[in-house]
């Protein structure tokens, strides 16, 4: 592979979280519109389930219900962003609460593949919510995700999406004693209104004990817009429309979520670094499943404090593909000043070893690790 083949361009990353039974529906539509490849990651969505108490005692029992989901991710040219969102929303009926969510993030991408203009069907644009933020919490201890998921549901923040990742770098430096530290990490993704995001992040830090040593890592990235799944509760519906449907309808009417802004009086409690000034960058790279090790080694040597890797499948439109669909995505957060250097290290290592690579970059804010806010 030649360095000249790698190009940096602006694109839009569209992420769709959908029940695993419905993902085929969406991938089929995306391929028909000209999308070349879709990355899929297994996930689960947590929701509250309301049950009556035993022997009809007064009150209700609330438990967490998990449903298998898949996170589909595609890169599209910015000009096709709205049409692809329309396509996904319409094909999977995402306006109906409980079916899933979709959102677009504007990113910078470095890849050999140039994005082709897509041919999504024309039609009236679907109203999408804007001014959103994606909160990504990476928790070191398996099982801690439950508490965080329960909290975000309790606060009505949205439906949390839980995935599994593997932590590298710090663990690797310990020698064989590393076996005492489980490499599995639990990742929680939550898309919320930007105005509530800092306060919600603060609450998640407290509840998930991210402020304790070895607790984990949390940050936010901006979201251009999307449709969120408001169905945080499942159970018997006794009214003509659920509260979630009413909220979704009001969001549509108000063309945003600012009407439901809360935590106003508490803003003063926020530390400055949880504010919305991006000083960090989230760099994610996607490479074939068997070739991530040298890249991970290179970024660690360059000074990345930790990389979280997730296992993905890459679907292509080809019916018969000889290349393995197994992919690895590594995610790291670095100060913006290091962004270009780190990108170069990743691409250089990939070029040297002839590894097909895609690097995506997006500003990150509110980056928090244990005991302190990370300052660049």
């Amino acid at each position, binding site marked *: 592979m030649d360095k000249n083949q790698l190009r940096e361009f602006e694109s839009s990353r569209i992420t769709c979280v959908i*029940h695993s*039974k419905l993902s085929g529906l969406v991938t089929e539509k995306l391929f028909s519109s000209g999308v070349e490849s879709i990355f899929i990651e297994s996930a689960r969505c947590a929701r509250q389930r309301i049950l009556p108490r035993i022997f009809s005692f007064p009150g209700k029992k609330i438990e967490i219900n998990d449903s298998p989901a*898949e996170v589909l991710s595609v890169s599209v040219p910015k000009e096709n962003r709205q049409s692809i969102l329309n396509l996904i929303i319409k094909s999977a009926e995402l306006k109906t609460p*409980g079916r899933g969510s979709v959102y677009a993030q504007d990113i910078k991408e470095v890849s050999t593949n140039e994005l082709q203009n897509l041919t999504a069907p024309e039609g009236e644009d679907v109203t999408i919510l804007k001014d959103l933020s994606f909160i990504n919490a990476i928790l070191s201890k398996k099982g801690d995700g439950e508490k965080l998921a329960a909290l975000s549901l309790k606060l009505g923040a949205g439906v949390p999406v839980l995935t599994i990742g593997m932590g590298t770098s710090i663990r690797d430096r310990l020698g064989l004693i590393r076996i005492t530290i489980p490499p599995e990490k639990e990742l929680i993704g939550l898309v919320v209104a930007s105005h509530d995001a800092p306060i919600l992040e603060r609450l998640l830090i407290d509840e998930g004990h991210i402020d304790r040593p070895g607790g984990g890592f949390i940050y936010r990235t901006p979201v251009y817009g999307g449709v969120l799944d408001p169905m945080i509760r499942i159970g018997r519906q006794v009214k003509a429309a659920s509260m979630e449907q009413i909220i979704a309808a009001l969001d549509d009417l108000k063309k945003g979520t600012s009407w439901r802004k809360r935590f106003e009086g508490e803003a003063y409690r926020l530390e400055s670094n949880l504010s919305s000034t991006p000083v960090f960058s989230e760099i994610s790279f996607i490479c074939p499943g068997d070739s991530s090790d040298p890249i991970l080694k290179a970024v660690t040597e360059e000074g990345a404090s930790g990389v979280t890797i997730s296992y993905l499948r890459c679907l292509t439109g080809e019916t018969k593909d000889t290349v393995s669909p197994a992919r690895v995505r590594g995610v790291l957060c670095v100060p913006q000043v290091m962004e270009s250097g780190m990108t170069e290290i990743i691409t250089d290592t990939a070029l040297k070893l002839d590894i097909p690579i895609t690097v995506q970059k997006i500003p990150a804010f509110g980056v928090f690790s244990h005991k302190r806010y990370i300052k660049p």
Partner: protein
Amino acid sequence: MPLRTTLIMAWNYAVLRIGEQIKSLAFIILYLTGFQIIVLGSPPTNSLKIAFGVSLVIFGLAFFLEGIFLGLMPLGEKVGLYLPQRTGIIVIVLFGLFMGLGATFAEPAIASLRFAGSGVVPWSAPLLYRILENEPQMLIVSIGAGVGVAVACGMIRFYYGISIKPFIFTIIPVLLAATVYCSLDKNLVKILGLAWDSGAVTTGAVTVPLVLALGIGVSKAMGKSEGASGGFGVVMLASAFPVLGVLILGIVLNSTTPYPVTETEFFSAAHREKALSLAGTEEALLRLAYTRGTNKGRESYFGDENEYRRSLLTLSEPQQKEKLIGSMTLNEWLINKASPVERDIAPADYIRNGRSGKSGLSGMKNIFKSESKIAFFAVLPLTLLLLIVLLLFLRVRPKYFDEVVLGIIFALIGMTLLTSGIRTGLAPLGDEVGRSLPRVFKSIAREEGRVLIEPFDEKQVITVFSIDGDQDRFFYLKDGRGNPVHVPFIEANYDKEKGRYEHIVKKPPLFGPELTLLGIALVLLFAFGLGYGSTLAEPSLTALGSTVEELTVGAVRKKGVIQSVSVGVGAGLVVGVIWLMYDLPTLWMILPPYLLVLALTYWSDEDFSGIAWDCGGVTTGSVTVPLVLAMGLSIGGELHIADGFGILAMASVYPIITVLLYGLSVKSHQRRSIMKISGEV
């Protein structure tokens, strides 16, 4: 890193792992000892040895599971991930075949089968006897071929992304049809239990995680649209194909095997040629008459009364005794095999102490030695095969090679400790309870041993009268602790001439002389608890549960899978014990549950079908098999059923039902989250 910090980290890690195993074993240990003390009313003997064995099991499980997760599974997954990328389907299929065969030769599942069939007699089940005793190599090859074909089929499934359901709906009806066909033949019907059990026991503690990881690797490398179900299904196939292999072996050997006859007919001179075709030599035939036959068989063998008596008298000569009854002691033979007439003829060799058996930790060295050899053969050949394929053919080095090596060492240590612990602690405990268990439902007193009192003074016998004038005579005998025990005097046991009294030690039935519902209920409760508790501690199930949780990102919980499988094994054992107690036809025990499983599979998700059928294969592992067989054989022996086959097959099929039901319940909950869909789901 400072040494102190390293030690703290290692300590916390060890405490966590060992704590997990104490939790998983707590139920079965408390249950067995509780049942023995509270229900059977006798405290466990050799408590120190059992406690030592149990602690070995705890450490063994902790080491073995860590070894699986650090070494074996990452290795299997890596090979699975790279094989499809660097080779073609033919190499993968050949590798699968080779690995399946190797796994069968490496893991001593066949030992469990021979143990289960240790009481099989060649007159009532000639074909079964022939397969187990005369053709064990052919049995191993047919089981190995079955596992090999299964792993190869599994690889094809993952490579081409074929659903597991067509495999299930093809192989299971074929197996059921073969079972129906075999049930129509007098000889073949006897091997049905063996065939279905061999399917259950083949997938051992090392094979399951390796095959599972291999499947996940291939599935990750090739699976385009597979979700959580990718990687499952091979264990199920590895449980089904060996059944077919054994049935085919039986059908082939049946044409040259004599049909069942009565014991007298079998040992008669007229039938000698056919009998010798099964026993081999005259000496072996005579030993069969002594060790597995009754007095009728021995009488028929000699034909002549005098010769028969002479042979019984030779039992006092050590060399001749070895020839006739093998390693069995004369006392054991007199209690378990001899008729009252034979006991009179044969020379007495009574035990003076009511209890026999060595106590303490003696013999541990030998146990460790033999178990480490077994562990060595179970772990090393397969892992070496994978390592060679990975390093030499695929030219890939695992990222954490030191972890893999440490994992293999942990697996070796763990398996040695685990199997040694089971042999010294868990199996004797289960065996002790199992042996006492028939007292719960049996209506007559059980003979436990004989004590010879010499010299005996009849004048010391006391007579008691009832108000009707009936007389009973008794005397006092010192028990092991020196306390006087009231013993009824039986005239027939007193030899006036020699001045000695033969006291037969009997344990009375627990619930009176009648067969009680309470007794049967207790046996069934015991069976359920034994199955449930031993499955909770099964290492391959823990590995499967963790894999399921990981692949479904927690949407299906490890705890849920383990609990539903354990309940299934418990239920399976209940049905298995009912089968033994009422001697129900094998076909009717196998056909209905499998038809139900097929129906449930039809309604189930692809994901759960693979998981559930694999659960059926992993349930019967290193912890469950010895305990279940001990119980099955003791109940079977008490009811004069020659073998304990079939009970493991029940422990395999019922977990499939419970996991499929668990899957349907999870699915119904999950559906609520997308209930408003018009019809796609």
